[in-house]
């Protein structure tokens, strides 16, 4: 879908809601080289959010949307949780259905779009929390990778169930005391990035959202590789400041503290040989869709 599809006829322009007019006038649909720097300017990138003040997820969400290479033909799939409170504000089609079934929904969706629009790019991006991705939905997360379904899975890892009030999750650190882990979590943080690699993902990245350039590169690679090669996975640390006892302004520092060389969110990236060859071909072609060289 291009901007021409959302254009308003002159006669009706003044009666359309201001949100819609601004979407037509200043969205970044079709803009080459869009990225995180459009946050705060482009209409479709969540002006207001309904998360807690200072929530790192709110900025992560904006980066993700700003860095989609092709938002005018991207459909997102969410799940229940804090992310589902933001999706209604987003100006790309997005689906919320049940808790944990996001990768199954995305599998059907991607296949339907591929069947209905052969030869046209239609990206599908899953964005869900760690409970949805790793606990209740793990089966469907992994099976979509085994089947080589061509979409990007993004996990907002806040290491607990935030929206229900801070219960233990599989991605929580061992020993952390929380609701439903009253004596501290008894087992290690699930190593989903390694599992993703073994399960057939062609691109896997683990990072915080403290460095927007890095997030931008990861998201673009994740979408493009998923489009052309196979499933991709990005795990972003978006700490729940509320549940780990931090103040609204402390989210950024928490992420910085967690991404040092030996910390659990040290930047890690895996790219399959096939995906590397694809990225190299993009570089060679110098297509406008190529990956920014700045990291």
């Amino acid at each position: 879908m291009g901007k021409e599809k959302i254009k308003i006829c002159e006669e009706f322009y003044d009666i359309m809601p201001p949100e819609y007019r601004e979407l037509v006038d200043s969205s970044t649909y079709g803009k080459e080289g869009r990225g995180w720097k459009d946050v705060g300017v482009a209409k479709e990138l969540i002006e207001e959010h309904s998360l807690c003040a200072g929530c790192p997820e709110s900025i992560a969400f904006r980066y993700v949307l700003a860095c989609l290479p092709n938002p005018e033909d991207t459909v997102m799939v969410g799940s229940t949780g804090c992310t589902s409170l933001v999706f209604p504000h987003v100006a790309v089609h997005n689906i919320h259905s049940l808790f944990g079934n996001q990768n199954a929904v995305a599998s059907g969706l991607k296949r339907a779009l591929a069947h209905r629009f052969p030869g046209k790019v239609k990206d599908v991006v899953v964005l869900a929390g760690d409970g949805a991705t790793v606990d209740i939905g793990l089966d469907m997360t992994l099976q979509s990778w085994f089947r080589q379904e061509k979409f990007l899975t993004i996990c907002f890892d806040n290491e607990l169930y935030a929206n229900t009030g801070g219960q233990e999750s599989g991605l929580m650190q061992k020993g952390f005391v929380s609701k439903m882990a009253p004596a501290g979590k008894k087992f290690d943080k699930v190593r989903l990035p390694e599992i993703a690699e073994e399960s057939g993902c062609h691109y896997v990245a683990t990072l915080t959202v403290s460095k927007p350039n890095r997030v931008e590169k990861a998201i673009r690679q994740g979408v493009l590789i998923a489009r052309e090669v196979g499933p991709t996975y990005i795990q972003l640390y978006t700490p729940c400041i509320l549940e780990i006892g931090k103040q609204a302004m402390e989210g950024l520092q928490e992420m910085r503290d967690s991404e040092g060389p030996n910390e659990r969110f040290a930047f890690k990236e895996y790219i399959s040989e096939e995906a590397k060859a694809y990225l190299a071909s993009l570089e060679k072609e110098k297509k406008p869709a190529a990956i920014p060289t700045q990291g």
Partner: protein
Amino acid sequence: MEANSVIGTVNKKGQKIVDPEYLFFEAPRQQYFMTGSEVVREAIRRASVDISVAYPITPQSEAAAMVGDLYVEGYVGDYFRGESEFAVMSQCAGASFGGARVFTTTSGPGTLRAYENFPMWAGSRLPILINVMVRGINSPLNIQPDTLELGMILDTGMLIWHAETAQELFDYLLKGYIVAEEPDVHLPIAVVIDGFFVSHTKDMVMIPSADLALTPYNPYRSPVPCMDMEVPPVRMMRDPFVMKSNYISYATHASWQQEIRAAIERSRKHTIRLIGGLIEEENSDADILIVSSGTAVAQGREAIRLLAEEGIRVGIVKVKTLRPFPHEEIRQATKNAKLIFVPEFNVVGWMAREIKAVIPDNHRVIEGPHVAGGMTLPPEVIVEEIKKVLAGKKEVVHG
């Protein structure tokens, strides 16, 4: 309508897209002798299905695999095996959100594994067609025909049609899409058959040529936006309802739920046009009536024949659609009956409860006979039940 513009064109498989009413009522048909599973394959061959997702569970596995053959032959756009019924129904949802016509099948424990998806399908207004081949649900383990699961999905917001025969199965699969996809309905539909009794037995079926196909689904006739980024992504609400502990939130949810029930009722006019009424009556002026759905009706017919030989006149009311439930039709059809027997293939007698809930003087309803767990329901058992009650010595142990 845009849907009509494809009529007369030829699809990728070389099938001619024809007006649905022509396909249903006018196109020449040929007789075949085939199993219920094969009937499913032949219906789907003509149904212009875009996506089908399969999962093995007895007794629907055979039909689900045959749809895979159709995919290889090019009659179905895409097809794969999901990882569980919960996942399969979510995959079907994703495909339907993306504007595809979707087909799937399930049975018994699979229906319950999938359960959470059904109200979500209805709430999202996804016109997915699911062929439910009912069987017993655990425990103890059972793979035999039993309609208990059907009583559990009645109020999921789906349309539910219960086919008695292979012929009805064929027709309901095709007609079901047309009704479910009407803009003023646009709901999922379960086309139900009794597992094994219909799926695995051979029956005579009249089928139109495989060179004809149903008009494809047009997702832009949906009352909600198709999630394909081909229509503007309106911001549907300022804040998500779930955030708002206020009247708007409750009212929105409640009215949306009411609208789904209203859409089920609005399907009546389309359904009556295509399947000739929500019930079927035979001698319904008799003092004694048998009212049920599915295979129980077939057995009831035999019972009526046996009783007629003894001079006892019994009529029958066959319920074709469980949702919408034909409450007014059943009230009318049973208004003169003194005794209403409800034979069922399940232990609880949910159909009798449904009927009791909508008719006056419901002491007239005799709940049974019931069989469960895959037992057959010989006509003689129905005859015996009726004679016992008539003799005033009913001491029947159900189940």
